[in-house]
């Protein structure tokens, strides 16, 4: 390979000859006289050569000498072909009523007419992604592409799960591949295994958040294997192709300034509502006569006083009674006005919700661009800041983009792009079942008598951890929870990521029918995450740091045979190419041992005990690929694409490390045959089949030992996963069929796709009986099938010069099934607190929730005839849920009246289950209103059964008769985890959300008057996540989870949704 490249470059270096090329400019306007912005101008017979009109409807295009026809297309207008004469200025008037020949960018950055695609690709314009200014551009894709499931998490800067057409790989990566201008961009997250499984830690987000939304021209989503085969292995999950802006064509230098700000508040329907009748405690077993309080003589008057059981993080205690005086946590805080005082036993006026602050965000960007007939350049800078709803949380992003292209000679074009992104995070929200996640505290373990603002005041007065949760009034140390403000202000994380990605390349017109493109691209980031636990917290004090360095280099060489007429009706084009991908990842994690010595000094050197050696990881991967593709177009109605690729991967055993995979796509534009029928303006059928091979993760072939913390001497052990020296590649086989039609002068159109993909011979660490001495063993087995239907539809009910209404609908259903796991029946993907696990089980969808269940008789839950409580199943391997939705969809309505436009997006998910640890515990500890309601007799359910209290659970007794035994609920537990199976806390995660709302006003040209240097002003207002129209999950956002990745369907310490409104000003000079 190396030698081949060298030779080719040498040939190129001495070659070089000139041929004439002309630059054509002009303005494109509609028949109503308004200029058309973004109209596509292409050169007939030269795929890939084309541009779009700018804000003034102007274009500038280099037209190769051998071509003389321009093709102008614009949605809603008839396509025009202009034959070029002598003049290099072509002003064009378009006739409305026809939509054809939209160009999309496909794999490897090659532009194709959508009509000529024989596979599913859906395009989203850049402006649709920046409308609501989400700091993570990935989030803005939600609901806009059929079959693309975007699942965001509610933590500030948290990761977003991006899956196309279902999960395919059992334990590998299932996230869609992000490609920016043909350069693959890493989108991993570095969240720990503990974080992903709800055991605490921070969600540091996913790396695609480094992409600058303001620089995005358009996004094309390539869904199936056929569309992506040329990207090789990792494109088997589909590709999100991002095309950045390519510099404004036209005279002079253009400047675009964007300024905006937004504010967010929490959505009450996604946070817990507290019962307001009972305070601290777990029941009636403390010291005083009532059993609800501690009994201590605090004021030393010789008689015992009532004292809150401060150690108890539940609200299953004494009924509130404003005339009863109780010594509470603040009676033991010397700085408090209530020090030494008993205060009324009442529900706190300021509950946990008073801690949420108004989120504030700003985004400012400037983009400078320009072009001449020799090339273009662009330079952009964007800064965004986001302050979250939790105190002391903030994420700042600085993004610089530079891109340029220049024709060194008539035949040689060089181009480059460099992007720099810096992300600074401070105080990301704690996640999981952990003392640093206050949502776990507030939703599961809380005293309703504690006033959060008093806790705040106490922290601000003392800068100490004065918690409500003292171990005991006589032992003033925190036991389970710190003061919440201490948690936020002292035990915070910081993180920083510097990222560079970009490329440098050339295109050489070797002959009139052959172009050669070479490109080197680099994607690299350095990341540090630092976590702190202050001295005085419930957890041992700690400083830890995690450094992660990632680098990927790609070397591409691509030869392109331009469309060539084999016969009069048969066009042929082809590609051959090679790619070398080299990726490396190195991490190091270090933390203090047994605490820190000097308070608030966070350095490894401040470790209380000698440091344990940091954990290092390093891996490298190289994949060498060569590929070829040939395309045939017959008489503009039959399209055939064939491709083949061979990869050689360093992560496979040497004798098995190369593999070949093919694809074939067939398109048939049947509307060519019934021109007579005016109602059908376009119709196409697509069929394709493709395979994609995939290599093993690095370091899964040969065995090594783990080195543990030394015990005086070196301590080593076998790893828990047995590697496999006989691995071969895994393979995805996909079939797809599609139908595209447009009707009534393109007023309405749809695209329906059916697909079936099987991923076989999967490389994964299969769980094995631990009696083997190992937890898992790498094998090549398994078959996961995804079948589904995707529909995208648009409708333009009104389309006049002044008023336009357009509806875009996307809908998809995916059915996932685990067909084979190589002999085993169940693969546990993660196990969680609460006795639930997420699994891939044979015959079931990927992502079943298993746990224990109720026992049933004739479909009714069985209740114990003695206790009145539910009986639960003996085992925990019963399927109690499935994380996969039945379908997902989105509807966007866009209205335009003259210069005013309004759009809104409703995003929907039907089905999919979620286990809530928040309800599991919170219903036991008596936080929710349903734990303090009245029973069927009208008596408080927490009263003793003997006094008419207790709860009559719906169900039957073991003999089948209806339950008539009221269960005792005097002490904690009846409605929560202690007395119910996990199945009782699985909820339907369906939702209907008003995801985006946007109002824009374009200042018309005449208002701007003579000040010609201002070319346009747009003023916008927007809202994000404004309204959850429908959901079934109580007190929480059904979309919220822990982290992006394969493990979904579990909530613990869930953060509320943030509703954001903002304003935006965009000025073009």
């Amino acid at each position, binding site marked *: *390979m*190396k030698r081949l*490249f060298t030779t080719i*470059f040498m040939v*190129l*270096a001495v070659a*070089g000859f000139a041929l004439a090329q002309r630059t054509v400019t002009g303005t494109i306007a509609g028949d109503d006289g308004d200029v058309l912005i973004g109209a596509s101008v292409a050169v007939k017979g030269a795929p890939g050569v084309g541009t779009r009109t700018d804000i003034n409807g102007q274009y500038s295009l280099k037209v190769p000498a051998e071509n003389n026809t321009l093709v102008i297309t614009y949605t809603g207008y008839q396509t025009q072909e202009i034959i070029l004469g002598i003049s290099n200025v072509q002003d064009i008037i378009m006739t409305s009523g026809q939509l054809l020949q939209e160009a999309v960018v496909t794999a490897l950055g090659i532009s194709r007419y959508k009509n000529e695609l024989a596979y599913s690709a859906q395009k989203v314009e850049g402006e649709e992604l920046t409308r609501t200014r989400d700091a993570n551009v990935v989030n803005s894709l939600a609901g806009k592409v059929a079959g693309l499931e975007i699942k965001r998490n509610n933590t500030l800067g948290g990761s977003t799960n991006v899956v196309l057409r279902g999960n395919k790989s059992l334990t590998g990566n299932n996230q869609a591949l992000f490609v920016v201008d043909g350069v693959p961009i890493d989108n991993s997250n570095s969240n720990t295994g503990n974080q992903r499984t709800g055991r605490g830690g921070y969600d540091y987000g996913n790396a695609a958040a480094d992409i600058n939304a303001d620089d995005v021209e358009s996004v094309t989503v390539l869904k199936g294997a056929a569309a992506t085969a040329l990207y090789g292995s990792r494109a088997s999950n589909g590709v999100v192709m991002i095309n950045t802006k390519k510099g404004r064509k036209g005279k002079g230098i253009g400047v675009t300034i964007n300024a905006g700000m937004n504010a967010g508040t929490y959505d009450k329907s996604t946070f817990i509502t507290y019962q307001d009748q009972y305070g601290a405690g*777990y*029941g009636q*077993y*403390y*010291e005083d006569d009532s059993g609800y309080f501690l009994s201590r003589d605090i004021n030393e008057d010789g008689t015992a006083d009532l004292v809150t*059981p401060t*150690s108890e993080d539940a609200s299953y205690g004494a009924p509130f009674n404003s005339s009863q005086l109780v010594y509470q946590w603040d009676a033991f805080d010397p700085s408090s006005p209530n020090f030494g005082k008993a205060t009324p036993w009442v529900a706190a006026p300021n509950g946990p919700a008073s801690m949420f602050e108004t989120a504030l965000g700003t985004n400012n960007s400037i983009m400078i661009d320009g072009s001449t007939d020799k090339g273009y350049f662009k330079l952009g800078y964007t800064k965004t800041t986001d302050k979250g709803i939790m105190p002391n949380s903030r994420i700042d992003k600085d993004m610089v983009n530079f891109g340029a292209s220049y024709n*060194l*000679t008539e035949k*040689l074009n*060089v181009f480059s792009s460099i992007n720099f992104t810096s992300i600074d995070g401070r105080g990301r929200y704690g996640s999981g079942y952990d003392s640093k996640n206050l949502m776990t505290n507030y939703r599961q373990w809380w005293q309703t008598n504690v006033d959060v603002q008093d806790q705040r005041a106490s922290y601000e007065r003392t800068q100490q951890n004065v918690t409500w949760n003292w171990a*005991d009034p006589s*032992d003033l140390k*925190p*036991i389970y929870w710190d003061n919440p403000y201490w948690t936020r202000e002292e035990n915070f994380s910081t993180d920083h990521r510097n990222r560079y990605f970009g490329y*440098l390349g050339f295109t050489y017109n070797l002959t009139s029918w052959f172009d050669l493109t070479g490109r*080197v691209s680099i994607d690299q980031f350095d990341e540090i995450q630092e976590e702190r636990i202050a001295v005085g917290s*419930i957890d041992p004090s700690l400083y830890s740091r995690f450094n992660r360095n990632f680098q990927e280099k790609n*070397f591409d060489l691509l030869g392109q045979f331009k469309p060539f007429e084999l016969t009069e009706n048969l066009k042929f084009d082809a590609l051959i190419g090679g790619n*070398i991908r080299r990726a490396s990842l190195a991490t190091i994690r270090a933390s203090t041992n047994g605490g820190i010595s000097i308070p608030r000094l966070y350095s490894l050197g401040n470790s209380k*005990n*000698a440091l344990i050696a940091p954990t290092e990881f*390093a891996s490298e991967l190289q994949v060498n690929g060569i590929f070829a593709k040939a395309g045939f177009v017959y008489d503009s109605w039959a399209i055939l694409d064939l491709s083949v690729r061979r990869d050689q991967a*360093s*992560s496979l055993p*040497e004798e098995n490390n190369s593999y070949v995979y093919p694809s074939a796509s067939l398109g048939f534009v049947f509307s060519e045959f019934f021109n007579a029928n005016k109602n059908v303006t376009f119709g196409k059928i697509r069929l394709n089949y493709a395979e994609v091979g995939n290599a093993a993760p*690095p370091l899964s072939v*040969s065995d*090594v*030992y783990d*080195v*543990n913390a030394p*015990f*005086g*001497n*070196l301590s*080593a*052990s*076998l790893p828990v996963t047995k590697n496999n020296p006989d691995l071969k590649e895994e393979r995805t086989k996909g079939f797809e069929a599609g139908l595209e039609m447009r009707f009534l002068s393109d007023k309405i159109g749809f695209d329906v796709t059916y697909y079936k993909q099987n991923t076989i011979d999967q490389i994964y660490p299969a*769980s*094995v*009986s*631990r*009696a*083997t*001495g*190992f*937890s898992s063993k790498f094998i090549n087995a398994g078959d996961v099938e995804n079948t589904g239907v995707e529909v995208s539809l648009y409708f333009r009910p009104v389309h006049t010069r002044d008023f336009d209404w357009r509806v875009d609908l996307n809908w998809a259903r995916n059915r996932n099934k685990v067909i084979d796991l190589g002999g*085993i029946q169940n693969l546990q993907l993660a196990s969680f607190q609460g*006795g639930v696990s997420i699994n891939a089980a044979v015959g079931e969808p990927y992502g079943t929730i298993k746990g224990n269940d109720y026992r049933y008789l004739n479909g009714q839950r069985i209740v114990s005839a003695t*206790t009145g409580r539910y009986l639960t199943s*003996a085992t*925990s391997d019963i399927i109690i849920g499935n994380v996969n939705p039945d379908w997902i969809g989105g509807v966007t309505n866009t209205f335009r009246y003259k210069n005013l436009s309004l759009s809104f997006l409703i995003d929907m998910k039907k089905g999919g289950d979620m286990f809530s640890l928040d309800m599991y515990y919170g219903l036991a500890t008596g936080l929710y209103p349903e734990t303090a309601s009245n029973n069927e007799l009208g008596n408080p359910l927490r009263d003793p059964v003997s006094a008419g209290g207790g709860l009559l659970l719906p169900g039957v007794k073991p003999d089948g008769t209806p339950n008539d035994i009221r269960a005792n609920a005097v002490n904690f537990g009846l409605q929560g985890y202690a007395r119910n199976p996990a199945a009782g806390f699985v909820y339907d995660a369906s939702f209907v959300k008003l995801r985006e709302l946007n109002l824009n006003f374009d200042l018309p040209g005449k208002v701007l008057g003579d000040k010609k240097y201002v070319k346009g002003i747009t003023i916008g207002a927007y809202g994000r996540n404004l309204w959850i129209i429908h959901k079934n999950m109580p007190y929480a956002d059904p979309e919220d989870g822990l982290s992006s990745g394969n493990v979904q369907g579990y909530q613990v310490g869930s953060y509320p949704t943030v509703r954001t409104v903002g304003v935006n000003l965009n000025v073009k000079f």
Partner: protein
Amino acid sequence: MKKILMLLLTTTLFFACQKDFGDLNVDTKKPTVVEPGALFVSSQKELSDLMASPNVNINIFRLLSQYWTETTYTDEANYDLATRNIPQNFWNTMYVSVLNNLKESQRLIPSQNISFFPAAVQKNQNACAEILNVYAFATLVNTFGNVPYTEALDISNVYPAYDDAAGIYDALFVRLDKAITDIDVNSEGFGSNDLFFGGDMNGWKIFANSLKLRMGMTIADVNAAKAKTIVEAAAPGTISSNAENVAFVYLSAPPNTNPVWEDLVQSGRQDFVAANTIVDAMNALNDPRVPLYFTVDANGGYTGGIYAASNNYATYSKPSTTLEDPTLEGILIDYAEVRFLLAEAVARGFNVGGTVEAHYEAAIRASMEYWGASTAEADAYLAQASVAYATAAGDWRQKIGTQKWIALYNRGFDGWVEWRRFDYPILNVPDGLTYGDIPVRYTYPIQEQTLNKENYTRGAASVGGDVVTTKLFWDVQ
């Protein structure tokens, strides 16, 4: 310009391909070769941690033996083994972290240079690993009954069959005898990698004999003749003073501290108080070890929380400060236990010398000495009619069983085994349960049901049902 650019690109590509393709898939941060001693170190620590830990996810034997009870979160004290997958965590640690590393260590012993590690040393090293193997498998059997043994620890067979528990015991006796024979007390063993005896093979020999004594006695109710032979053979070589206890000495700094410190002190939690079961029993006997085992309660006396009920932490006695020492040693077998075993042997008519009474008294004195009670306190204690062997209540099972249970405080697992063997003391029954509901074995891990189903099903059937109330093969009285 053009040429420079081309040259640049060419050069870049050339260097990019420099590193040898095949070398990329090598882990540069982990060793491919280690000494057997390094694996022996980790298996010793994992074994000791597992047995010493009070973590509710992995070791709840102090609750099963009713030495401790829980305060607010009482699920484990109420025998909820399922929610936290406790049997699975125990099983997994034993097979994966302890046994597999012992096996790997043994595999590597012959690979050492014979001139530095002569045959006698290698033989000694192997014997050490064998003794721990026997200890670990005996513990698994005493927990679950039938478990994978002959087909275990072989990754090429991912469906290991379960062996009959009695048969495993037979095989373990053979291995133990071979290890005892192989030991050459005048040669080195694992040296400083031996965290129990620092390479002193004499210690291992005493350990092996004491373990043999214990295991022999374990089967005494089901096979008295075999037990007699084994016990009589082992008795002369067993632990003869507290100085010979088999103990794992922890260090003061994490992560090498006693796990009890982690859960009682480092965690800052208040999960455990003394159980009324043991505190009541010891108070009734005026046991001088009470203040050594527990702290004072809220009233300055000693009371335990009601077993398995919700208990207010401040009210009751807690584990004593002795247990809060990060360097507290983890005991695998000690002198008191050996003397109780000898007492039992004499009571059963085995010929091990001495009288029941003498061994019984010596055992109690050994425990007193270990925990720091004075000789005078021990004398006074033993002088009581309720304690003295001749006058204490019940038959030998009750007398020895009760005192042994008290002496095995902080060794929850052994306390649970001996309770099942002696059927004494009478434990408390959690609210809503019956005496028969108290676990006498662990259920198999849920993972075995899904990953090794056929063998699991056969194993479950052959022990008599995979429930906590199925008695193990030796639990026939």
